């Protein structure tokens, strides 16, 4: 066939998915440029990368260098040392806790848990808040009223106090805690932010165009409103991670959670064993976990702040 149709002549050389990939790659690079302008975001990202490396290193170290009998974060015990807690040494880089377990191993093992907890809670929060925000902005009327009153109701509950009460009346494990945190903050204050944003999207011409083109409610909500809420969702995820990690640590610190090892539990163990105010000699019992909680929380918070300046055009420097 010598002749080609107009369509074929005009057709792009590349398949559609490749063009889409290029487009998103381009926008990622542009946003990365905006993000990288802000040093505080890079600091936060650096800390997150550091802890990610720590979390991934732990299973590898356990398989290769560390003897599970000595270095297991939960049941390990170093018999060669008589007095526990022992100060940092070549064998135990951060010393051992009052029960003879390696602190560095505990710290690294918990890192993975903190990430999982933070992200699970954040994803639940954002999924609920995005859909509820979009739905109540789209339908308005009584649906809006019910969800907004619900948000008010959750908003007046003091978050930590409620979690303390809930976890003291029922033994919570990590997954349940993530679920509770996710639901509470998803239906709570975060929804209000998403609804406000969705309302500004609702008046955009493309929503009307979609409606004229015959898109049904769910199509408009999930193909036009929700994708435009994604930047905001990503931003709020960062803050949700901070909140979840902090809540877990605080509850563990009070000894209210049914978790094997976590940073909060490490501090709780130290306090329960009575080394809290002893002296600076036992710094390695409380500092690694305390500093880790603080650093990881603030890292996500800093990334969130930096993302805010990328997403919110009124805050941009140019």
């Amino acid at each position, binding site marked *: 066939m010598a002749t080609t149709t107009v369509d074929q002549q005009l057709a792009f050389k590349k398949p559609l998915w490749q063009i889409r990939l290029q487009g998103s790659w381009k926008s990622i690079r542009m946003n990365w440029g905006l993000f990288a302008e802000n040093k*505080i975001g890079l600091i936060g990202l650096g800390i997150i990368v550091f802890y990610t490396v720590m979390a991934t290193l732990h299973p590898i170290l356990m398989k290769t260098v560390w003897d599970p009998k000595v270095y297991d974060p939960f049941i390990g015990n170093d018999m060669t040392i008589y007095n526990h807690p022992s100060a940092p040494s070549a064998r135990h880089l951060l010393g051992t806790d009052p029960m003879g377990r390696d602190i560095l191993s505990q710290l690294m093992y918990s890192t993975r848990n903190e990430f999982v907890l933070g992200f699970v809670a954040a994803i639940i929060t954002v999924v609920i808040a995005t859909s509820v925000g979009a739905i109540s902005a789209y339908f308005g009327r009584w649906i809006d009223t019910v969800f907004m009153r619900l948000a008010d109701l959750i908003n007046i509950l003091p978050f930590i106090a409620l979690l*303390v009460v809930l976890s003291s009346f029922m033994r919570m494990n990590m997954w349940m805690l993530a679920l509770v945190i996710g639901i509470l903050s998803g239906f709570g204050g975060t929804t209000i932010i998403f609804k406000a944003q969705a309302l500004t999207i609702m008046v955009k011409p493309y929503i009307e165009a979609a409606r004229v083109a015959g898109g049904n409610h769910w199509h408009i909500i999930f193909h036009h409103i929700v994708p435009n809420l994604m930047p905001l969702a990503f931003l709020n995820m960062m803050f949700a991670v901070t909140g979840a990690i902090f809540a877990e640590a605080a509850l563990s610190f009070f000894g209210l959670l049914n978790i094997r090892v976590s940073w909060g539990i490490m501090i709780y163990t130290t306090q329960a064993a009575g080394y809290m105010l002893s002296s600076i000699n036992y710094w390695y019992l409380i500092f690694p976990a305390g500093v880790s*909680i*603080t650093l990881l929380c603030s890292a996500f918070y800093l990334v969130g702040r930096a993302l805010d300046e990328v997403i919110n055009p009124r805050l941009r420097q140019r």
Partner: protein
Amino acid sequence: MWKYLLNRFIQIAVTLFVFFALTYFILDAQPGDITLQYIDNPRFTEEQRLALQRRLGLDRPVTERFIRWFVNTLKGNLGDSYIERRPVMDIIRERAPRTVFLFLTATMIEFFVGYILGKLLAWGRGSAMEYSVTVVGAITYTIFTPWFALIMIWLFGFIFHWFPLGKFLDPNLWRKIPVEAGINANIIFNNLLLTATLVVIVMLVVVALSNKINPRRAIIIRWSGLLFTLTAVFVLWGSYKYGYLGWDIIWHMILPVITLTIINFSGTMLLTRTTMLETLREDYIVAARAKGLPERVVRDKHAARNALLPVFTNLMLTLPFIMAGGIITETIFSWPGMGLTLLQASNSGDIPMVMGAFMFIGGLSLLAHLVTDIAYAYLDPRIRYA
């Protein structure tokens, strides 16, 4: 306005009812009750346990108990605490002022510091100072509160011996006071609260009166007003026979207040920065500069004051959360307020006490919402509640 207020009150009432019902049923849904804590005691027979259960009304269905609790609450009777064996109302009346005093003081200082720092941050955007203060602020904002509070206690209480390790008064001072004096911690405490309120009111009046005059003279008037008020307070408390007891309470309060300020100031700071960055782009800033106003006046009067509204709203809305965060602070500093009471009550299954504490915190935050809405109407002339 009145219609709006009435509407809001109805909403508050409905929300509170749902809140109480939810909390009560969640608390009750957990297995076991308070009588089970004696089950290990061999001298506590099963009949005795059932009798205790009957006496506390725990054998009735939960709906009936909730309705009874609610009706009694409306009459002002919150029931008795299972653990402390005295009316919940008494406990709240005794401990709520302590919580409110501590956290209100801390919040006011925190707000002041955060607002000024945030103003400077937005003004000096892009400088090295801004980055470092923001990073430090984010770290103190998200710092692990129990750990940080313990470090503070260890450093200032244990190493330097500057401040006491915890509690809110020194029992040794109280031992010397004869019983006939009829004085107790709450009298002293309420007097302190009264004094602080009066000082704040006087200062607000002074600031409001000196608002319209030349800023340089106003500063002199304000500072001398503050000095005068504080002198009056010191003279009054110094002449009071038990004035040193008040000082003792304040001395116990300093460390928690410093800790709370360090933890919370950057929330206000970062928010002030964000909102001020937005106001700095407004046309009236350009106009103010074009008029030839000094930079300081542009910053303080034109930019910062317009950025104040969202910051103030946020402050009011987070007030209940600061108090709830008090559950951590109060526990670490063993400050016997509502937070510590709530933790102890929920750890021991003391349902009436938990409900009472929740009523205090929930009611307070609803009140904060209401005050915010009304204050909004005064601060922003564009908002009017028809």
